[in-house]
């Protein structure tokens, strides 16, 4: 009996630690400037006014930051899925020489940490004249060996006889992929798309390096530069943080089970 109580107590303690930062951020998004500078720290705001949210949305850059992030993340998720689907189809459905070495070359990139390649990649993007462009933000992380691996696994588990039958029927590879293969593996494709979107939307370092114009900053970089903090308006910064976090909290609640499945599969495979 004592074990049960201790267990419950420990769980609640852990939950409090994990939930605290985001709970505090939510509260702070309602703080008035006075609440921040008070001689002792608050947890609850003195009033629940939406001024901070109004101020964040009224900032001349914040909506642009969000647009930049959404556009680059959607393009990256789309391109990564497309590129991985094409490669995975070749590896699983076509006979060609050099298949094994080429697969190894692509998968070896998993062992090369992109963070150690920041400078040469920056030079490449600069050399292509892509600094301060969406393509500069997107291109270096379009290909991902782990995404390829996930789709490869899904395509491998598909019955080859269907492909043979489709070919005998005279339907081309394009039609087979669009009408049979992709619908059969749609949950994995969706997981790759969503995972890429989230990673791209949350990335900080690379977009920071390849953009310098305020109008080109993504929201993760932008929120650290909104300038509210400098003017003592911390509240608006927290409102800005909450507005980009909320959609992901909602996705988490809706897709928890599916995401857990996809994530654990992608590591276990």
């Amino acid at each position: 009996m004592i074990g049960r109580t201790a267990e419950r107590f420990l769980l609640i303690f852990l939950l409090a630690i994990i939930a605290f930062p985001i709970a505090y951020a939510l509260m702070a998004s309602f703080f008035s400037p006075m609440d921040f500078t008070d001689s002792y720290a608050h947890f609850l705001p003195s009033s629940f006014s939406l001024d901070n949210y109004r101020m964040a949305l009224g900032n001349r850059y914040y909506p642009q930051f969000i647009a930049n992030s959404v556009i680059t993340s959607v393009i990256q998720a789309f391109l990564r899925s497309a590129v991985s689907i094409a490669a995975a189809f070749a590896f699983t459905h076509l006979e060609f020489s050099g298949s094994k070495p080429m697969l190894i070359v692509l998968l070896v990139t998993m062992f090369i940490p992109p963070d150690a390649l920041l400078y040469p990649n920056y030079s490449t993007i600069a050399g292509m004249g892509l600094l301060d462009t969406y393509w500069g933000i997107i291109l270096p992380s379009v290909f991902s060996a782990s995404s390829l691996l996930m789709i490869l696994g899904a395509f491998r588990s598909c019955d080859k006889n269907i492909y043979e039958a489709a070919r005998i029927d005279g339907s081309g590879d394009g039609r087979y992929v669009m009408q049979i293969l992709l619908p059969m593996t749609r949950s994995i494709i969706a997981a790759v798309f969503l995972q890429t979107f989230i990673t791209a939307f949350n990335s900080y370092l690379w977009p920071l390096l390849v953009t310098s114009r305020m109008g080109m900053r993504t929201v993760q970089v932008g929120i650290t530069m909104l300038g509210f903090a400098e003017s003592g308006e911390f509240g608006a910064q927290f409102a800005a943080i909450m507005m980009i976090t909320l959609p992901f909290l909602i996705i988490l609640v809706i897709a928890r089970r599916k995401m857990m499945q996809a994530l654990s599969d992608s590591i276990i495979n």
Partner: protein
Amino acid sequence: MKRQNTKAYLLLLPSMILAVLFSFLPLIQSIIGSFLNVSQQGKVLGAAGLDNYISLFSDKAFINSIGHTFLFLAIFLPLNTVLILLAAILTRRKRRHIAIAEYVFLIPMAVSLSSISLIFREIFRGRVSIANRILSTDLPWLESPGCAIFVLALLGVFLDFGIDYILLLSSFRKIDRSLIEAASIDGAGSLRTLFYIELPEVKPMLSVIIFLAIKDAIMISAPVMILTAGGPFRSTETIMYYYYLEAFRSGNRGTGSSIATLMAILAGLIMATMAARRRHDRENG
């Protein structure tokens, strides 16, 4: 057969170009660059032999950054491992109220790196910070070297918590139920079942998580930029933050390439060891 060759190569072309252009080529560039004498403008002035490496290791700031990185790792890794293990163990059996706890433990996954760094900066800001109020302490968290690296480690736990928790939890839940039931029929208490049946079963996944955590820890840089910018008194300058300073701020191409080369090798080795261990586990499991 010939026709399929062309088709396959066309389909593989985008992946191959991107992998070469943004992964292999920059790695080779870093390795070669680390043995060259390169001007700030990027002009190659000649071979440098090991000069870049020698000047790197005689640079006090770089040696210090190694110390900070390993101090960070030494705080972060045990803290992270204990917390995710506790969270997963306490929620491993599905019950109705447990589902709520599961959601809460996943929250860190919805919060981005820069958001959580900004939140931490506020929680630990100054002596009147909420952290001091709750803990009834009076610590200058981000203004004193010892405290700042601790806050950074705590931030590291938050960054990895969600994903690590999912992986460990699903590993616990994949254990064959009959093993656990057999143990309880044999009269084993829940603590004995946990230590003798369940923990050995999740060990392979736990080791994957630990390897990934070590790799993430030695590569940490972005949270440093936002939380402390390396301060106070350069006490939170990690190796990769120092790389960023060298390559992008000071324009020291040679030493920058040397750091990149060493860290790429180190991270690659960690990942390769992990992969080898997993293969070993699978063949024996």
